[in-house]
């Protein structure tokens, strides 16, 4: 008798589970992170402690940068307002722990996508918003014009806890050069130490070098060597285990890139609703039900484009116009000779 009851209950429970799955797809789609974000009314975003062009706060505390724009895009999609983001500046060392311990929901902090980070420590990378590579900065008068001019005994300043430390070792080892790594916890100290002459070279991602060079006492006395010693695809990261949230962040970023590809800008997005191109119409929510698949309304992508702009606008505003890297290099659309290529939104 008892056995029968037990079996019956389990059958009922199984049906109940099936039932919820089939009838409440929408609710199931609503991920925990999405639910919490909508309840709080803001997106919790982890950014750098100040890297011009990527994530940097001005005197009034307004954050700007391409990394910042990813979080703003998510806020526009999920909450309808790109300004509803709470930024948390994090050091390289703190960033992953802040994400896995649930203090932030998106980590958009010039973070390199690697296998071990993606697979090992409870994180998921959702895409690439900047293709970068590690380079070296030296003093112009040093006579060093290529990485082949480095000699044994060279001291290199860099940041703690980044892929830079590993690439640097691989690079100098492959050249058979004994070097002295000087690693600081914060970028400002690296810049200060290099500026003072503690190190012969400063190595980090090339975009970082370009941005930090401005902080040196005489920026014109320094130059970035032409060689790139590593691949550094930088992109936003989310916690592992919430695939809906992961999709929302991924497609918010993809929407910005795809919008540029189809020539949809913050200025003309509304007019594009009547475009002849179905791909464009889908992008601005005039056709299809793409939002529902993410648990959002159908105007989510339109809001991203209107409030944040497309990728090209974001790049121009943050990186090109500020003089950091006027040339887009690999961060140009695939149709224009770059490697920005995103899956179609359909």
């Amino acid at each position, binding site marked *: 008798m008892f056995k029968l009851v037990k079996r019956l209950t389990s059958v009922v429970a199984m049906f109940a589970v099936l039932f919820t799955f089939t009838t409440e797809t929408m609710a199931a789609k609503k991920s925990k992170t999405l639910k919490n974000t909508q309840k709080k009314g803001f997106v919790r975003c982890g950014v750098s402690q100040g890297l011009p062009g990527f994530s940097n706060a001005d005197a009034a505390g307004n954050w700007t940068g391409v990394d910042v724009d990813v979080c703003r895009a998510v806020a526009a999609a999920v909450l309808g307002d790109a300004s509803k983001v709470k930024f948390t500046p994090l050091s390289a060392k703190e960033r992953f722990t802040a994400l896995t311990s649930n203090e932030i929901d998106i980590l958009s902090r010039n973070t390199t996508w690697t296998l071990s980070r993606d697979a090992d420590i409870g994180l998921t990378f959702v895409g690439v918003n900047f293709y970068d590579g590690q380079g070296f900065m030296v003093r112009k008068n040093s006579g060093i014009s290529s990485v082949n001019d480095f000699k044994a005994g*060279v*001291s290199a300043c860099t940041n703690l806890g980044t892929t830079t430390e590993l690439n640097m*070792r691989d690079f100098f080892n492959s050249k058979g050069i004994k*070097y002295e*790594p000087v690693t600081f916890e914060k970028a400002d*100290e690296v810049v200060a130490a290099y500026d003072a002459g503690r190190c012969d070279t400063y190595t980090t991602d090339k975009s970082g070098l370009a941005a930090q060079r401005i902080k040196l006492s005489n920026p014109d006395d320094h130059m970035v060597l032409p060689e790139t010693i590593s691949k550094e695809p930088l992109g936003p990261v989310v916690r592992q285990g919430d695939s809906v949230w992961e999709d929302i962040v991924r497609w918010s970023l993809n929407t910005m890139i795809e919008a540029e590809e189809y020539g949809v800008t913050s200025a003309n997005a509304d007019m594009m609703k009547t475009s002849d191109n179905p791909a464009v119409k889908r992008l601005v929510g005039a056709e299809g039900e793409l939002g529902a698949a993410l648990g959002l309304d159908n105007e989510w992508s339109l809001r991203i484009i209107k409030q944040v702009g497309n990728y090209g606008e974001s790049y121009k505003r943050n990186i090109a116009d500020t003089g950091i890297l006027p040339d887009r290099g690999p961060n140009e659309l695939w149709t224009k000779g770059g490697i920005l290529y995103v899956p179609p939104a359909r």
Partner: protein
Amino acid sequence: MENRGITFGYGFLTQESSFDVQFSLIEYDGSHSYFRAYLVGLLNTILVSVIGIIFATIIGVVVGIARLSSNYLIERTAAIYVEFFRNIPLLLQIFFWYFAALRALPLPEKAEPMFGVFFLTIKGFFIPAFIWNNLYIFIYSVIAAIIAIFFVRAYAKKKQENQGTQTPVLLISIGLLIILPLLSFLLGGVDASIEIPVIEQLSKTSFTFKGGLKLPPELISLALALSLYTATFIAECVRAGVQGVSKGQKEAAASIGLTPNQVLKLVVMPQALRIIIPPTTNQYLNLTKNSSLAAAIAYPDLVLVFAGTALMQTGRAIEIVSITMLTYLTLSITISIFMNWYNKKIAIKEK
């Protein structure tokens, strides 16, 4: 943890670390394991703590006694030093010594040699190194000398108790420490030559020194900041200790015919030490723990190497932070046990 996709385990300690460290006491590079990286960090922490404790004690005792001086100028100078250094946050002092002093130091090519062989530059303090042959025999001879000194001391004490005559223990000790290692050179086949640092050009405008020993500027400024800061507290402990010995003790000692030196050595100091040691132990512990601020100025201590780079590369926050905490706990307890033992040794022994 499982919910968040985090796995737990200490297996990573045997993996290849694949990052290099600027300064290490044992042989290490990226092909060694994370455990070895841990040892590198630990030894560097111990090194800066030991240097810091030694200098803080010396400066502390000198300043503490200077504060008791009847000379107004000396007393005031010591007081100003104490008030100034103990009231500025340590992290600021570390930054000051590192960045301000770093900028004041010359580039390697402009460095003036001290005594012809020492070079203090922005890239570090380059000093001559000894190149040893049969170093172990030399070390044995030093150990033998130290053991012999213990015997001499025990003998001298016994002799004084039995016959009342004093033996010049200090002179004999110094003699032993010189003669035994010297014999190892003459008879034991020990041989040491000195390697002097030589300037080397890296590029058109950048230079460094090759050969000899290199003390990184990070170590020097950290040790300097830690010892100057902690010395102020130790100075106050010393002052309290000496003032805590009642005047009557000194007068009584003088009245039985002890010389001023003997009064200090046999009457005042033994009593003052009992007051000085317990609070000084606290300061030693503080210094050791404060050395973790090293991360700010790139000195590769336990926090920077292990709880910094290693944590970042492996993502094993819980494991690494727990190991680091346990390590500091062990270090602190070891210092405590030693100081408590010493404290007990000098405590009043009721007979």
